[in-house]
């Protein structure tokens, strides 16, 4: 029982098998296992908090020969976020699928997705990362295809081929690394790596593959269709978690393993792509005609902010400033995960009730679905970066880091992005406030609205007011920051 890292991967995997073998009880198994997995992820955070980064060498072979599972503050906090989002979405999904067969198809794949996410976050090995990426990609595509209409299928086919391309390019980078260093383990690699051509080429390839997968501008073109056409709980997981874990690998590579290889120019380049994503994604979100499409484009923009952090973090001297900027990055990623999943879940409720999610026809939503409207507003607050959400504090630190590292040009980007985010959020709310026929109770679809509300509150209140805890956690237990 002493290895929560093993359990958080194996429990959803086992649950996936059981739901396949015993479809009639699938929802109970899914709920039970995700709650237990969540508990284990919290145990893991507790262990990291008290004992520092954790390692589990699989098969008792030392890392290098075998594969190690690793958890530090970054992966552990993302893991807990992922499990919270996943568990809440699981409760939501239990109520969401009205078609019995669809529900039966959903569970094994859904739990497989959780397996993939958890395995990816805890992986300490380059090739193992490739396998988890493929597991993640395939289960995500299969889930997207669950809403079986033409648009969804076309989107998922595109999603699949793009995903495969991304992982192959990543794998090509891994091949180069193995050629030069004969190492696949990340920690050993970090000790050996030098700023030499091989490492640069390999990093370029791996980053290119991951950029495709995490939909960084201009590789974002596949994301909106896929995320908008999937069933709501799946969209929530795709936007909040799936793209974010690819981003996690990029961070792991750029800030931890390959940090000696990074040149200011390359960091600046990735930051510029991030800035373009912020502006472009927000602009497209503002022009989107459907709520889910808006949410999907907003994901493109929000991921952009995370990339802007890379030139800032690498541009700051090691020490407290750098640590602060890094923690702000994590805080922003966590907040976005919670907020975006809440937004997609609410969009699902709206879609169920109205039969559509066209923004222009949302009039009366605030009367018929007051709580859902409130949740949309809360997630919007977090996406804009207004207090009391966690992203407010993160953006404060982002601006501070821009000033500290004398990279003032990110400031107008952040300001424009925030204004655009406010515009698209309040565009939805403005329509929702319009006159409508029926007035509903505060709580209408409890089994869908309460999970969404929980997530939205995590994004706004919990991460906003409790962010100091994250600072303690990250600064004490991160492998990278401060050398």
């Amino acid at each position: 029982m002493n290895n929560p890292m093993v359990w958080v991967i194996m429990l959803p995997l086992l649950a996936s098998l059981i739901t396949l073998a015993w479809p009639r009880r699938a929802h109970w198994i899914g709920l039970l296992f995700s709650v237990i997995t969540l508990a284990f992820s919290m145990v893991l955070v507790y262990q990291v908090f008290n004992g520092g980064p954790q390692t589990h060498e699989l098969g008792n072979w030392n890392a290098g020969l075998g594969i190690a599972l690793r958890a530090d503050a970054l992966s552990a906090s993302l893991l807990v976020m992922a499990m919270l989002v996943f568990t809440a979405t699981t409760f939501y999904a239990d109520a969401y699928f009205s078609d019995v067969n669809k529900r039966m198809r959903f569970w094994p794949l859904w739990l497989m997705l959780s397996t993939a996410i958890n395995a990816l976050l805890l992986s300490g090995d380059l090739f193992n990362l490739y396998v988890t990426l493929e597991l993640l990609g395939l289960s995500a595509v299969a889930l997207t295809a669950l809403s079986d209409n033409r648009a969804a299928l076309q989107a998922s086919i595109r999603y699949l081929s793009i995903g495969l391309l991304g992982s192959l390019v990543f794998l090509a980078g891994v091949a180069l690394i193995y050629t030069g260093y004969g190492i696949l383990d990340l920690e050993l690699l970090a000790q050996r790596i030098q700023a030499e051509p091989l490492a640069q080429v390999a990093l370029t390839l791996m980053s290119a593959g991951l950029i495709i997968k995490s939909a960084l501008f201009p590789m974002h073109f596949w994301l909106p269709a896929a995320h908008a056409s999937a069933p709501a709980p799946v969209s929530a997981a795709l936007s909040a978690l799936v793209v974010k874990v690819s981003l996690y690998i990029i961070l792991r590579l750029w800030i931890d393993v390959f940090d000696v290889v990074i040149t200011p120019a390359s960091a600046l380049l990735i930051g510029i792509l991030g800035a373009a994503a912020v502006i472009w994604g927000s602009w497209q979100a503002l022009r989107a005609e459907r709520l889910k499409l808006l949410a999907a484009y907003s994901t493109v923009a929000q991921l952009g902010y995370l990339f802007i952090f890379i030139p800032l973090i690498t541009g700051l001297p090691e020490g407290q400033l750098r640590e602060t900027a890094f923690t702000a990055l994590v805080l922003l990623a966590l907040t976005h995960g919670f907020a975006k999943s809440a937004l997609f879940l609410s969009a699902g409720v709206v879609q169920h009730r109205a039969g559509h999610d066209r923004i222009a026809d949302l009039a009366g939503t605030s009367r018929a679905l007051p709580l859902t409207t409130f949740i949309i507003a809360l997630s919007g607050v977090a996406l804009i970066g207004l207090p009391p959400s966690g992203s407010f504090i993160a953006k404060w630190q982002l601006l501070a880091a821009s000033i500290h590292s004398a990279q003032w040009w990110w400031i107008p980007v952040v300001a424009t992005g925030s204004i655009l985010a406010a515009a698209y959020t309040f565009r939805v709310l403005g329509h929702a406030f319009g006159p409508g026929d029926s007035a509903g109770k505060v709580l209408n679809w409890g089994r869908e609205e309460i999970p969404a509300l929980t997530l939205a509150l995590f994004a706004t209140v919990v991460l906003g007011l409790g962010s100091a805890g994250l600072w303690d956690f990250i600064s004490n237990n991160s492998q990278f920051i401060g050398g």
Partner: protein
Amino acid sequence: MISEQLLFALCGIGIFSIGLRATLIHQQLLSRLLALNVCGAGVFLIFIAIAYRGETQIADPVPHALVLTGIVVAVSAMAMALALRHKLKDLNDE
């Protein structure tokens, strides 16, 4: 020994590039799928080329195992892509 490694690794890069180019160019799923598999084969060839350690020594077994895994993953992905294609055709026919 180096020369064989380099030769086959460069061949792998060539195959990878051919596949990559075709993946980016083709619009149609099946052609794209073939291209992706060619692309993957190129990466596998790089792995196996550098695993080769001459006639006299046993080759490095780690890349062999990785590529075996990669082949199985590739065939799984292909099965899935073809199933998606089939479903889409059914929907289009309706």
